[in-house]
């Protein structure tokens, strides 16, 4: 048994929160994304369903189309890209029918995201606490003082040790791990049902990476958040996700429950990824432990 699938096994022993009867909160059906500038199709048919409490992982290297897919679900594709085929439904609504104002409503309160390099996604001229409070005031209608208190609660919920202090600091005064927690706090402030984590741990130290992943798992437990975790690192996906999509050059080459994909990969590319993880993983250099049955 590979260490990856050990982690996957651990992930699977959670009680399943949503039965098959729960309608998916995000459903992506055969989405194709087309680039008008080079007149080429970049993403060729991605499909997955996301139900509350579940986590979908998307793995792939740079250029595989995973970020574009995420941006499409958020409605923030770069100017010359468009969804040329397929549908995306958030909470049952087809996003192609949404106006700008409806999108603004939807974002933050139903679907939200955190990205790589957290410091650049916060305004460097404003204190970070104020930015969280801003989301609260705008999306949940709280008054200034209540928003501040709630923001402090959120900072505490993302396991920041000193919320009062962090509230009043600027982005350049905080470390990467702290900033990512702040970003997560801001993302969940309005209580969205879907959170997309696009390479959220890629730029962080390994220990911090583990903490953030734990944090995401905790949030999923406590709030029933549905997660989409995008990464080029198979280990990250293995730790957190129920099902996995492997993307390569815009195509989904493998899709299934994490355990299955890792234990018995069907596509040669997936097999390559798993094998490389094995060959270059740390465990190869550690003393062999008792294998769990």
């Amino acid at each position: 048994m590979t260490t990856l699938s050990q982690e996957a096994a651990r992930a699977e022993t959670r009680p399943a929160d949503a039965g098959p009867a729960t309608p998916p909160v995000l459903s992506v059906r055969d989405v194709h994304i087309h680039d008008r500038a080079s007149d080429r199709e970049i993403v060729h048919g991605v499909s997955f369903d996301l139900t509350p409490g579940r986590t979908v992982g998307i793995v792939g290297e740079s250029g595989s189309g995973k970020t574009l897919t995420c941006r499409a679900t958020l409605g923030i594709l770069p100017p010359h890209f468009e969804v040329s085929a397929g549908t995306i439904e958030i909470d049952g609504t087809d996003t192609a029918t949404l106006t700008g104002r409806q999108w603004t409503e939807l974002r933050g309160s139903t679907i939200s995201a955190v990205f790589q390099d957290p410091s650049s996604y916060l305004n460097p001229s404003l204190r970070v606490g104020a930015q969280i409070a801003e989301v609260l005031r705008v999306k949940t209608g709280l008054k200034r003082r209540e928003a501040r208190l709630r923001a402090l609660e959120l900072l505490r919920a993302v396991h920041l040790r000193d919320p009062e202090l962090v509230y009043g600091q600027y982005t350049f005064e905080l470390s990467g791990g702290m900033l990512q927690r702040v970003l997560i706090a801001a993302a969940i402030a309005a209580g969205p049902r879907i959170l997309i984590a696009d390479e959220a741990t890629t730029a962080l130290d390994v220990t911090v990476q583990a903490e953030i992943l734990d944090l995401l798992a905790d949030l999923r437990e406590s709030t029933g958040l549905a997660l989409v975790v995008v990464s080029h690192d198979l280990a990250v996906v293995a730790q957190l996700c129920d099902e996995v999509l492997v993307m390569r050059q815009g195509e989904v080459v493998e899709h299934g429950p994490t355990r299955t994909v890792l234990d018995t990969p069907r596509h040669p590319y997936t097999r390559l990824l798993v094998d490389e993880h094995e060959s270059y993983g740390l465990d190869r250099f550690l003393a062999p432990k008792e294998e769990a049955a």
Partner: protein
Amino acid sequence: MVRRVLSLTSGRIAVAVLAVIALLAILGPWLAPHDPLATSDDTLAAACGPHWLGTDHLGRDVLSRLLDGSRISVLGSLEVAGVALAVGAIPGILSVYLGRVFEWFTLRLTDTLVALPFLLFAVAVIALLGNGITQAMLVTGTLVSPLFYRVARAATLTVARSPYVEAALISGASLGWIVRRHVWAKVLPPIAVALAQTIGVGFVIVSSLTFLGIGVQPPEPTWGGLLASDLGYLDYRPWGPLAPAALIMATVWACNLLADAIRDVSGEAGRALLNGRKARAHRLGTPDTAPTGGA
């Protein structure tokens, strides 16, 4: 680089306009149909046969005066740019190599120069030291030199501390080779941009000074001076200021356009721009094999 600038439409227009102005300056006196100083009885005439742009209040042919006056304007602005370049660029480059004291000193000096209103100083100096556009241009050039100082210093800093220069030094390349191969290419474009801008500024200053009647003796025609005399006779020739004003504006505009064009084609962004254009030009035919877009 000249070729690259000319490949842009804006570059072509700018160079064309400036070339015309330069030609006017050089050939002006010979092209003038009349003696610019000759007065006549035909005063304040409109554009007509013998006088394409009419005559001024003393019956002098406006076109000839314009052509003759172009020399002072062009020479003056070139002087300003030249002085600014010499006074600014050299300390700028040296400030990187000559130690902290020199650096601090020149930086403070530049800061103070920027604070001074150059037209005011030019007026003061000319009036106090007596006539001569040259002195004023010297002063103005010095006052405008901070731009060159900063540009030269910034360019030299990026080059001097850049990894590839270090690598070249380590692998044994001579300083001269490095200068020719790397420094020159990096420093030249921003300085060319600054030069184009300064020529434009110099033009405005020369026009302003001659407008005020400073630095030139009365009968001598200058573009600014023409504007000044036109001012008094607006009732009779309201369209009078048009020609010299248009010339001044066209020149300044061409200078700025040139500066922009140089900026557009230099550096990383510039190469990307030109490559993009080339790619689009080659698009007819085989399909692109460009890398996949986005992750």
